[in-house]
């Protein structure tokens, strides 16, 4: 694939990717806030005041997410929205990584693989505290 074609694909698809995931995340966040306002306003206020006291650790971990979704917790929707938002950069780097593999530009395959690994290491570092 010529360099100009690679550049065109990056410039055309990166904004589409960024905008799509950003809109999806914003829809989830707005929906989560509306659900919280409708079904659990007291819980929201309680969590807000707990946050003000700095009581956070372990309360909203990824690991507890499936249980909270099953329990119909509107906050789980907010957590998913925030998680989708943080996927924006991950998805963008993954897209570049795949494009560079297709083009056999191994220097940039290595560079984007490093960034992807860094993002994944971030999750692991956070998970162990």
């Amino acid at each position, binding site marked *: 694939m010529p360099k100009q074609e690679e550049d065109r694909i990056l410039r055309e698809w990166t904004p589409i990717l960024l905008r799509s995931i950003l809109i999806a995340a914003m829809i989830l966040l707005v929906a989560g806030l509306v659900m919280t306002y409708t079904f659990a306003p007291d819980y929201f206020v309680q969590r807000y005041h707990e*946050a003000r006291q700095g009581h956070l*650790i372990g309360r909203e971990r990824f690991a507890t997410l499936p249980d909270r979704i099953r329990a119909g917790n509107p906050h789980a929707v907010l957590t998913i929205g925030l998680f989708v938002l943080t996927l924006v*950069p991950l998805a963008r780097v993954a897209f570049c990584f795949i494009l560079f593999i297709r083009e056999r530009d191994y220097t940039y395959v290595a560079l984007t693989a490093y960034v992807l690994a860094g993002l994944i290491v971030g999750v692991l*570092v956070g998970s162990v505290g």
Partner: protein
Amino acid sequence: MLEILINLFALSIGAGFIGAISGLGGGVFIVPALIIFAHMPMKVAVGASLISVVATSAGASVAFVRDGWTNLKVAMVLECATVTGAVIGAYLAGVVPTVVLELLFAAMMLQSAYFTVTKRGDDILTRGDPLAERLELSGDVPDLSGTPVHYEVVKVPQGGALMVVAGLMSGLLGIGSGALKVMAMDYIMHLPLKVSSATSNFMIGVTAGAGALVFLARGDVATTIAAPVAIGVTAGALTGSRVLPHIRVEYLRTVFVIILLLIAAEMGWRALSGI
């Protein structure tokens, strides 16, 4: 709940708006706004800010990438440095005492104020160094008449070293470190200022994203704060970027510097007085 939401939206829309028109990003303003006005602990403010910074970076990057201002290859090279710094910084944010974070934040505000005052014109190079040429980092940027001007890039390792520091500050303090990133690209690597700003904005998503993932995975993000803040900062930043072409930003520069100095003084005072 409605009152809390209105307060958080007002703070975050204001922070996103000022961040966009000053070019410094929403994180620089939302962290102190949450600490000073909403009385949030520093770590809660940092977690919420990191996530909102990811959103504003993605929103602002759409036009910059499409219109060709962002140097995607420079971003991909330097993101290796910022991600490394951001993951280390976000990890350290969980163990470093708040007083140190407040002092660092004050220092970063002073650096942003210095950058705002000393912003300079382009110093375009026609010859790059061997590493930059091997990585094909050069690019073209339209001048005032729209004619493409070719620019080359130099000193990638030195720029990368400053990017590790920018990432570290981002992960520790919840800001995009845009002022530091633009300085590295403009002053050290000699990219044109507008390319540096657009590329910095693009990179901020990955830098803040790395920090945000550490905070989210650790359970250090308060969804009740982060969700409205992310929506508000994004709305404020989008409004700011729409208004930006119609206002004379140079007249506002003094106002931005005064705000930054006030934030630096407030955060420094908090650290030293133990509030």
